[in-house]
């Protein structure tokens, strides 16, 4: 179809374009290689294939924003189709007589049916692409969807502030519209024998504009010429997403969700000294540098971030966006020195770093396998080692953890005091063998709002004849939140202390009432040689019911309850079913909140937030959650007593507070699941025969 001169121009253009594209991706790969080593991945080809299938079915985006995700599918399948469309368009231009119109009638060896099918798909996908891209264009520029913006207090790269993201989107949106329209017009101009039933849109355009050789040449050049410019551009824009996202997903974290990467990678190149955590972008692992190229800045992570909800200056997506622009300025631009900028200046504000609850919602929802939360923990790690000023509450907690093994400034010997107050004795697991070693945790041991529940767990275990014991003063905080605050050294110290205590004890498995302890004992202690069977008490209780050791004496149909999935039990460790089965067993009316299981909304206490001395203004995540529970109950009103059921000591504190601060004491009450079980099983607190007086 093309004249000789056109062909020469095309080939020169294609070579130039390929040159710029190769340079673009080489620059990206070079920047990724500057990162530290990442935890070793197993069976990379297998994971890449699995990721390819996931991408093909667009599974990961469907976790949130269902309608927009379907439109994204139009875009995705459209662009995949267009990879072939462009190839054939180029062949039609270069190979004389090669044309696919009318079933490729001139072509030998090619089945007409196949060509017709391809024509139909590409024609319809052209339409789908135009619709999808128009929706996205309208959403960003006319509807101005707030989900695509950032809070004013979030640190943003200057270029992003000046609208670089929107410009990027506009360029690609306009390209797609022009490219697809030009292709459709080229096909229309090609139809010199009237309509082709397998090309309905092109045929419709042909009925208006007719066939034209000049038109064909102009449209072809607009369609294919544009591609030559846009491909190199993509490698320099956020649309690297098209290429990097599937790869990034294939290389995503394989270790358990609840296991943080080490503060210093296991592999350090010879002659290098690595400080723990990350100060500058190249202190991050290569995988987390790659994250920023996979991110298309959809902000799904920001939607689910409890800190962002609370008005804190944290946006996980802004973190990725800022990383991306920092890399762009340093590698494509003329500022290579920017690679040395502290992340806390260029990427995320220190206040935002300390706002993260490490709830994992951002990582869970990310369609492309990014881990912004892990970056934040690495930044904290380095800040702590470098002696950054800490929040006074966090500092006090850490100092107490270092000296007392708990964050509440209580003496070690007081840890088992609640057990000594019981009406029966509780074994010391470091002195005599037990089947279940109960790891109690700080909050359940010391906090007087939670201790009554702790005692009730002991009564139920005792009632069921469970062989259990605790470690009394030998137990230290498990270190889950210490590690997530970034105090890796203290975490290791706590692990050593607990491993020493476990060494003294004889037990078959660990049971814990605390999801945070559960997480680190189960997922992180094995790296320190602590390979134990670890159970959350909801699982142990369910087993006791299944074995007939606990039986329901009274159905609790007079309660209407909802259940909050603790992050470290649910999203991190998949412990969704045991608590729900227990609720079913005790016979309460159960209403599920909209944000449940994987999509549960953090109470705001994790990652050291519960230690913070400063409390920010605004509606707290826990308050919002209580409102969510009440709205859920309102959909199905009744006169029953309404309960908010928790299975985490921190939740007990956070939500009891939130019920008070939202003045909802008359509408809803927070209870630990053990309180329901006690009532259903018929185990009660012993009646005190004499009043206890305490010294003033």
């Amino acid at each position: 179809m093309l004249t000789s001169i056109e062909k020469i121009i095309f080939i020169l253009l294609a070579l130039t374009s390929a040159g710029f594209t190769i340079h673009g991706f080489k620059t990206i790969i070079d920047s990724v290689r500057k990162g530290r080593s990442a935890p070793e991945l197993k069976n990379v080809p297998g994971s890449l294939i699995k990721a390819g299938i996931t991408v093909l079915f667009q599974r990961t985006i469907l976790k949130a924003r269902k309608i927009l995700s379907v439109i994204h599918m139009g875009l995705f399948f459209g662009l995949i189709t267009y990879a072939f469309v462009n190839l054939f368009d180029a062949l039609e231009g270069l190979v004389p007589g090669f044309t696919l119109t009318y079933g490729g009638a001139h072509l030998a060896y090619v089945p007409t049916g196949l060509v017709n099918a391809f024509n139909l798909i590409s024609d319809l996908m052209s339409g789908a692409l135009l619709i999808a891209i128009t929706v996205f264009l309208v959403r960003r520029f006319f509807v101005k969807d707030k989900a695509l913006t950032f809070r004013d207090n979030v640190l943003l790269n200057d270029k992003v502030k000046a609208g670089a993201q929107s410009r990027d989107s506009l360029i690609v949106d306009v390209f797609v519209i022009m490219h697809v329209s030009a292709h459709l017009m080229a096909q229309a101009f090609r139809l010199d024998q009237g309509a082709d039933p397998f090309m309905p849109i092109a045929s419709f355009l042909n009925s208006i504009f007719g066939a034209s050789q000049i038109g064909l040449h102009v449209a072809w050049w607009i369609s294919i010429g544009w591609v030559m410019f846009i491909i190199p551009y993509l490698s320099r824009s956020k649309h690297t997403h098209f290429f990097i996202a599937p790869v990034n997903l294939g290389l995503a974290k394989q270790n358990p969700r609840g296991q943080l990467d080490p503060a210093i990678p296991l592999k350090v190149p010879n002659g290098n000294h690595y400080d723990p955590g990350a100060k500058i972008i190249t202190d991050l692992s290569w995988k987390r540098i790659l994250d920023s190229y996979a991110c298309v800045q959809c902000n799904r992570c920001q939607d689910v971030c409890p800190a962002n909800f609370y008005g804190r200056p944290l946006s996980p997506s802004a973190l990725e966006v800022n990383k991306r622009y920092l890399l762009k300025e340093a590698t494509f631009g003329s500022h290579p020195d920017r690679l040395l900028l502290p992340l806390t200046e260029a990427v995320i504000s220190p206040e935002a770093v300390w706002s993260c609850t490490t709830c994992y919602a951002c990582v869970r929802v990310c369609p492309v396998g990014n881990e912004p939360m892990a970056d934040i923990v690495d930044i904290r790690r380095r800040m702590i080692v470098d002696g950054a000023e800490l929040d006074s509450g966090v500092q006090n907690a850490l100092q107490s953890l270092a000296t007392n093994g708990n964050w509440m400034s209580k003496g070690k010997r007081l840890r088992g005091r609640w057990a000594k107050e019981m009406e029966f004795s509780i074994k010391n697991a470091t002195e005599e063998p037990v089947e279940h070693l109960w790891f109690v945790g700080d909050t359940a041991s010391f906090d007087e709002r939670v201790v009554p529940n702790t005692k009730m767990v002991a009564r139920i275990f005792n009632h069921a004849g469970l062989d259990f014991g605790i470690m009394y003063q030998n137990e230290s905080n498990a270190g889950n939140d210490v590690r997530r605050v970034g105090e890796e050294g203290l975490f290791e110290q706590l692990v050593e202390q607990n491993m020493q205590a476990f060494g003294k004890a004889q037990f078959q498995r660990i049971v814990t009432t605390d999801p945070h302890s559960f997480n680190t004992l189960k997922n992180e202690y094995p790296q320190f040689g602590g390979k134990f069977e670890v159970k959350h008490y909801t699982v142990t209780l369910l087993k006791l019911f299944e074995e007939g050791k606990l039986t329901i004496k009274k159905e609790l149909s007079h309660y209407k309850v909802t259940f909050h999935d603790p992050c470290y039990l649910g999203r991190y460790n998949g412990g969704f079913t045991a608590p729900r089965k227990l609720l079913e067993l005790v016979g309460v009316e159960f209403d599920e909140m909209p944000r449940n299981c994987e999509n549960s909304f953090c109470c705001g206490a994790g990652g050291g937030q519960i230690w913070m001395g400063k409390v920010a203004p605004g509606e707290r995540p826990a308050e919002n959650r209580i409102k969510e529970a009440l709205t859920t109950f309102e959909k199905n009103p009744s006169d029953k007593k309404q309960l908010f059921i928790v299975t985490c000591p921190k939740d007990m504190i956070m939500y009891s507070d939130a019920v008070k601060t939202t003045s909802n004491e008359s509408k809803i009450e927070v209870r630990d699941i053990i309180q329901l079980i006690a009532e259903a099983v018929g185990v009660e607190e012993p009646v005190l025969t004499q009043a206890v007086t305490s010294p003033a």
Partner: protein
Amino acid sequence: MDIVVAIKHIPSIADDLPVKGNNVDFDSVDFVLNEFDEQSIEQAVLVKEAVDGTVTVIGVDLIGELDNILHLALAKGADKAIKITADDPAASSHQQAKWLSDAIKSLSPDIVFAGVQASNDLDGQIGPMIAAYLDMPYIGGVSSVEISDHTATINKEFSGGFGAKYAVSLPMVVGVQAASKPPRYAPISKVRQIAQTATIEKIAPSGDASAGLAFKKMAAPVATGHAEMLTGSSKEVAAKIVELLKSKGLA
């Protein structure tokens, strides 16, 4: 500038304080660093950072566990650590002051910091006694120290929100109430690294103090009454409070 910080290892009050005979039952109590000494270490390190010098931290090792505290001080920026190996958990403040000042004398310091008081020494004896033994001026209740030209500019706090600024020629002893900045956090990785590499100088206790106090009796305070908890809904509680205030003639 040679800066010395005298610290005190004291029974922790995070625990119940067990009593045995006329004193604390030292076998069943944890020992911690006096919290005012935490402030005085910080103030000493801040001074060192401002004027250049060395900080030597010195304490009496009462139960053989002072190393942890000295490692922490080194991690926070002290340069040298000394322990006086007394191995007597009941050593009085007066006795400790004698041992400390004998050791400090040989260091010929420009300034000595001590916590203004300790929870087992609420009348703040250590600082003034060291000053007396060393024949140096003493100011306690100090909330900031700056040094230039061998003169210390010192802010002292009085009750009622009053403060005074002193200029004192060195050498002197300072009783620190609060450092001019909150004490820094020492990352445990650093503390543990120091614990493996640092050397702590040991000194034998020098001799008995000429005078001091002796315990006659130690007992828990007797409860003379206890708080009444108002129960009920917030409205009921509020009503009870109003009633109570009225009955006392306050409303």
